[in-house]
C-alpha cells in the first residue's frame, strides 16, 4: 500500500517536472523568451534588463532551476495588462470557472445518466439507437458552436436569456449547457456500458429470481452500483471542464480562467498564458492522482498490481 502510494505520487511529480521542462524548452526553442516576457513595444534596454533579471545569460540547466524555483514559490510573474501578479488574477477567476463547471456537470448528468440507463435497459432498441445518435452528435458539434446556436435561439429570437456576461443565475444557463453538452455524451456512454455490465451480474439475476419488479431491480439494485464509475468520471471531468472551457467562456464572456487565457492571447500577455497552462496541468495531474489513490484504498486489487 505504502509502496503503491509512493510510486504513484512519484509518477505525478515526475509528470509535473516533465511538463514544466517542456514548457520551459518550448518557450526557449521558439525564440527569445525575453521578448515574450516584456510588454510588446518595449525598448531594447527593457529587454536586456529582463534578460539579466531572468538569468537568461546563464546556462540552460541553471535557468531551468530558477524557473522551477519561481514556480515552487508560486511566483508566476506579473500580468502586463492588469499589472497584478498572475496568480491573484487566476485565483480571482477560479470560483467562476468552478461554478460554471458545476452547473455544466449538473446538465451533463441530468441528460447523460437517464439516457444511458434507458439505452442499457432497452439495449439494441429504439432508445439505444437514439442514444448512439446523441452521443455522435455530442462528439461532432463543437461546444462553442452549440453556444452560438443557443445565443441565436434563446437570446436573439426568443429574448429569454442574456447573451453574455455574468451576474444573475440566468447568465450561467447557456454557457453551462454548451459546456456540458459534450460531456453528456461521454456520461451517457459510460452509464450505458456500466449499467449493461451490472445487469449481467449474478446478484441482479438473484433479485429477478426473487420476483422483484423490474423497476425496482433497475432503480435500486443495478443503478447504485452502475453509478460508481460514472461518478468517478464526473469527478475527473469537473476538473477538466474548468480547464477546457476557453472557447465557451469566450463566446459568453464568462469571467473564468478560460476567458483569462483568451485575454492572455488577445493582449499578448504571455505570463498569463503560461500560468494558466501550467496550473491546468497541475490541477489535472492532482485529480488523477487523487482518484488513483482513492481507488487503491477502496480496491486492494489495484494496489497489488505490478
Amino acid at each position: 500500500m505504502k509502496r503503491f502510494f509512493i510510486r504513484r505520487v512519484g509518477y505525478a511529480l515526475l509528470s509535473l517536472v516533465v511538463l514544466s521542462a517542456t514548457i520551459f524548452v518550448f518557450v526557449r526553442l521558439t525564440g527569445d523568451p525575453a521578448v515574450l516576457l516584456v510588454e510588446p513595444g518595449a525598448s531594447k534596454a527593457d529587454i536586456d534588463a529582463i534578460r539579466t533579471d531572468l538569468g537568461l545569460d546563464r546556462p540552460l540547466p541553471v535557468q531551468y532551476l530558477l524557473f522551477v524555483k519561481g514556480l515552487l514559490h508560486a511566483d508566476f510573474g506579473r500580468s502586463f495588462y492588469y499589472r497584478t501578479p498572475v496568480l491573484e488574477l487566476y485565483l480571482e477567476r477560479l470560483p467562476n470557472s468552478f461554478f460554471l463547471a458545476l452547473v455544466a456537470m449538473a446538465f451533463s448528468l441530468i441528460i447523460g445518466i437517464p439516457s444511458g440507463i434507458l439505452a442499457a435497459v432497452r439495449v439494441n432498441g429504439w432508445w439505444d439507437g437514439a442514444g448512439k445518435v446523441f452521443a455522435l452528435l455530442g462528439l461532432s458539434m463543437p461546444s462553442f458552436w452549440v453556444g452560438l446556436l443557443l445565443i441565436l435561439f434563446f437570446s436573439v429570437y426568443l429574448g429569454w436569456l442574456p447573451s453574455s456576461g455574468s451576474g444573475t443565475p440566468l447568465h450561467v444557463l447557456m454557457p453551462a449547457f454548451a459546456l456540458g453538452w459534450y460531456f453528456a455524451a461521454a456520461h451517457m456512454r459510460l452509464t450505458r456500458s456500466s449499467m449493461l455490465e451490472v445487469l449481467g451480474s449474478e446478484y441482479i439475476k438473484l433479485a429477478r429470481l426473487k420476483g422483484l419488479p423490474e423497476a425496482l431491480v433497475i432503480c435500486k439494485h443495478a443503478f447504485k452500483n452502475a453509478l460508481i464509475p460514472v461518478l468517478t468520471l464526473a469527478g475527473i471531468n469537473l476538473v477538466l471542464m474548468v480547464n477546457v472551457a476557453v472557447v465557451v467562456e469566450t463566446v459568453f464572456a464568462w469571467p473564468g480562467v478560460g476567458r483569462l487565457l483568451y485575454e492572455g492571447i488577445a493582449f499578448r500577455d504571455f505570463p498569463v498564458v503560461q500560468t494558466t497552462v501550467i496550473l491546468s496541468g497541475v490541477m489535472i495531474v492532482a485529480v488523477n492522482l487523487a482518484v488513483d489513490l482513492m481507488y487503491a484504498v477502496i480496491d486492494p486489487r489495484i494496489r497489488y498490481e505490478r
Partner: protein
Amino acid sequence: MSVSRAATLTVAWRLASFRRENVPWFPIIILLTLTVLALFADFIAPHDPQVGLLGERFRPPAWQQGGSTAHLLGTDHVGRDVLSRLIFGARVSMVVGFTAVIFAGVIGTVLGIMAGYLGGWVDQVIMRITDAWLAVPALTYAIFLAAIVGPSEGNIVIILGLVYWTRYARVVRGEVLSLKERDYVRLAIVAGCSKWTIMRRHILPNVVNSAIVLATLMLGVVIVTEAALSFLGVGVPPPKPAWGLMLADGKKGLMAGYWWLTVLPGVCIMLMVLSANLLGDWLRVKLDPQLRQL
C-alpha cells in the same frame, strides 16, 4: 518487399475482403464531396472568398427576403460571399486536418514502436513525456504553443501534430508490447535481424492498421481543435476562409439575427467531424480484429 508496400498490402487486403454489407455511404459521400470542393474550389466557388463589397454586406441567403441569387448563401460583415468562403474553407480544413493527423501519426507511431520494442529507459522517457503531455488539455496546450509561435496555417499543423502524437504513441506502444512476444519476431531475432530491421519490417506493418483507425478518429478531433483555435484568433490567420474564423466573424452579426453566418460554417464543421467519426468507427471494426470481438 518494401515496408510501405507491405503496409499498403495489409490494408488493401482487408479493404478488398469487405463485402458490400454496411458500407457507411453517408460519411464517404460527405468526405468525397468535401474533397472535391477542396480540390476544385477555384472553379466551383462563384466569388473570390477574400474580397467583398461593403455595399453588399449582411445579405441574407437567396431564399430569404432581400437575398439574391448572386449570393446563394448570403454575405458576411464585409460583403464576402458565404458560399465561396465555405467552399474554400473546406480546403483549409482538409489540408490542415489531414496533414496534422498524418504528422501526429508519424511522430506517435515511431515513438510508440521505439518505446514498446526497445523498452528500458527509452520506454520510460517516451512514456513519461506522453503522460505529462496528456495531462494538459489538448486545446489549452495548442493555445499555449500558438501563442508562442504565432498564427499561420503551417504553424497550426505543427502545433496540432505536437499536441496529438501522444494518443498514437500510447496505442501503438501497447500493441507493440504484445507483438514483440510473437514467434515470428523471436524468429527474426534468432535469424540475426537488427533491432531496426525488426521494428521496420516486422513490427511497423502490423501496427499500421491501428494507426490508420486512430488517424480517422483523430481527424474529427483535429478539425474541431483547428476551428476552436481559429475562432480564438490563434489559428488560421484572417482573411483566409477557415470555418472557425467564419464563426468568429459571424459573432459580429449574431445579435442582429444574421443566422446564416453562425449556422452554416458550424454545419460544415459538424458534417465533416461526424463523417470522420462514423468512418473511424466503421474502420475500427473492419481493420482491427481485436476490437471486433468487443
